[in-house]
């Protein structure tokens, strides 16, 4: 602030007391001086020499347009150097960054940040699950079960159904091979020995 607004009432008061004590002024004169002081006190806020709210508003708007891709419905109001922000930002980082930017604008006393952060966009639809048809599966199942003669396997509608017997230690090996064939599902009805 180029103009010290708090100094004026004090100076006037000292001036007034001096007059009362040493010049023995009349009550009318006292009233006149008092009125003058009150009038000046009322007019003091206009003594500010910092940026006006309109200037701040303009600066905030310029900063806002510079980051227009980061936010939607971004609005700002300025009252006595206090900037109030509304709108929604794409993420917390851009929201915080803008608040910092606004705080750095000359004349801004504080920022009331009522803006929000948009929920993240839904994740893109994952690629559809690849499921092989019965012919591919049957050929793959034949290869996968060849070394396990006690295992019987059938394929229907891309679902592999296992019956028969298998050693517990061999089960993961067989399963790894079958899962890699990209079936829809594996029904394991094997008896584990």
């Amino acid at each position: 602030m180029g103009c010290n607004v708090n100094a004026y009432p004090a100076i006037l008061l000292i001036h007034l007391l001096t007059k009362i004590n040493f010049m023995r002024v009349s009550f009318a004169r006292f009233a006149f001086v008092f009125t003058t002081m009150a009038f000046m006190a009322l007019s003091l806020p206009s003594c500010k020499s910092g940026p006006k709210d309109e200037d701040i508003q303009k600066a905030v708007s310029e900063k806002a347009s510079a980051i227009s891709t980061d936010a939607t419905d971004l609005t700002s109001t300025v009252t006595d150097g206090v900037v109030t922000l509304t709108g929604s930002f794409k993420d917390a980082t851009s929201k915080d960054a803008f608040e910092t930017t606004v705080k750095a604008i000359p004349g801004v006393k504080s920022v009331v940040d009522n803006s929000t952060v948009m929920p993240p966009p839904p994740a893109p639809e994952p690629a559809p699950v690849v499921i092989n048809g019965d012919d591919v599966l049957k050929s793959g199942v034949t290869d996968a079960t060849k070394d396990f003669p006690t295992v019987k396997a059938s394929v229907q509608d891309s679902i592999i159904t296992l019956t028969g017997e298998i050693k517990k230690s061999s089960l993961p090996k067989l399963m790894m091979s079958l899962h890699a064939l990209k079936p829809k599902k594996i029904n394991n009805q094997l008896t584990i020995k």
Partner: protein
Amino acid sequence: MALQDKYKELLDAARAAGVVNLQVREQDNVLYITGQAPTGDVKDSLWNIYNKIDPDFRAGDLVMDINTADSVAGTKATVTTDSSNLNIRKGPGTDQPIVGKAAHGSTVTLISKTNEEWWLVKTEKGEEGYAYARYLRPQ
């Protein structure tokens, strides 16, 4: 989402182990997990967790197609049969004629991957043909 909760330990382990292109999808009450594990050990550990959550793979609510990362030509692989020789075949399929054998514990050189099940390899003796990938572990 319930299936992702059931197999959460498995999914967390896959992410922590650096499985690339990890995709987790749920469809018709079956969870599909695909991706490439950096090593055969990682794949084995994921299968161990699967076996722990769903003992003996009975539930039929998961299809886990985790292969080992695409090995480049020239990669060496160990033959991991139980004890017998590994058949080297003329083409990718058990109906194909056997053109060679790779001994248990021997090393073969990867030439190319026809698919996840059949790899074209060259044995220590110089025989070229297709071997079933279940019995090959990239070194």
